[in-house]
């Protein structure tokens, strides 16, 4: 379609796609703010839709795009290393109730992953998808790192995490209310384990205490799964 109007050379340039990605993110951020931080449309989702649309319209192969895109995704590495800082803070703040929290986080997160992996194995039965499903319960940069390590599909991992986050942020508070066990601690930790970053921003709307537990659970789950899962797969 549009590839007849735009000089082909421009669509081969890494800087073109760097520009498109940055523009898509900024636009996504704008939309997000306009919608009062709607949890169902985080900038990463709208940005992803816009970039994919641009690739589709211009008929650009992903490999060409990634020449520019990798300049940004490279930074996932340093970001993951930097997670040591919140992790240190959390260890420090939660040391009194640490054992109980660690048990809840370990068994809660491994349960959801185990159920998801088992269901994928029996319903779909494609190994690459099953392996990717294992990293669905950790924050995206870590999920991408795990799936690269274990022979999964990083893009699919990012999609799983995004979708889980959006669904989890929507249903977890309701689910816990239904079972009459919502408290800042339980809801916060559950959001962090199952809905990672999206869940944590939802927790922030519920209150500071919710958010603190959620952020801690998210970081701890990510570290735990990244260290444990590759041995099991």
């Amino acid at each position, binding site marked *: 379609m549009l590839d007849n109007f735009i000089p082909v050379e421009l669509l081969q340039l890494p800087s073109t796609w760097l520009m498109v*990605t940055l523009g898509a993110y900024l636009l996504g951020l704008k939309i997000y703010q306009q919608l009062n931080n709607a949890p169902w449309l985080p900038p990463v989702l709208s940005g992803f839709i816009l970039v994919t649309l641009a690739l589709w319209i211009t008929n650009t192969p992903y490999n060409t795009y990634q020449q520019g895109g990798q300049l940004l995704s490279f930074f996932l590495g340093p970001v993951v*290393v930097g997670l040591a800082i919140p992790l240190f803070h959390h260890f420090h703040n939660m040391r009194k109730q640490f054992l*109980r929290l660690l048990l809840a986080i370990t*068994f809660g997160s491994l349960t959801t992953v185990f159920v998801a992996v088992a269901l994928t194995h029996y319903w779909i039965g494609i190994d690459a998808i099953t392996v990717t*499903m294992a990293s669905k319960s950790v924050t995206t940069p870590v999920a991408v790192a795990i799936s*690269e390590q274990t022979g999964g599909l*990083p893009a*699919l991992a990012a*999609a799983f995490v995004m979708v889980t986050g959006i669904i*989890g942020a929507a249903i977890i508070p309701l689910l816990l209310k239904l079972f009459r066990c919502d408290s800042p601690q339980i809801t916060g930790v559950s959001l962090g384990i199952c809905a990672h970053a999206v869940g944590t921003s939802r927790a922030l709307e519920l209150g500071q205490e919710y958010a603190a537990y959620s952020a801690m659970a998210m970081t701890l789950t990510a570290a735990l799964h990244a260290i444990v899962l590759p041995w099991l797969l």
Partner: protein
Amino acid sequence: MVDTLDLGSSAVRCESSSLSFRTKIKNENMLVGLFALLVFLILGEAVQSWTAIPVPSSIIGMVLLLILITLKNKIPTSIELAANKLAPLLPLFIIPISAGLITQADIVEQYGLKLLLILTISLIPGVLVTALILKWGNK
């Protein structure tokens, strides 16, 4: 190397200096922090290839940094500065990876609904186990 990481504290000592000078120090410190994060990333890579541990190299780097911070019992200012600058940009860094979904369109088309169902169902037991353990622990 550990000494260079402490450069951050010099920013505190410059309290009285002019604003532009302080900004310059801050930017320099951020680069020191970014450099340190990269050093740990590469260390993680090195440890991974020496030991053949299947853990992602960035996570090994994170653990090494956590060990250093725990030993010092203090977070180097420069590293904290760099990490705090990078973290809010995370969605931007993720977009290029997630756009790769375009190469997996057939999986999404064929199994999208099943995958959505799996992701939703699997949340419930996870949340219940978490809630049970936390409740039991509170008594």
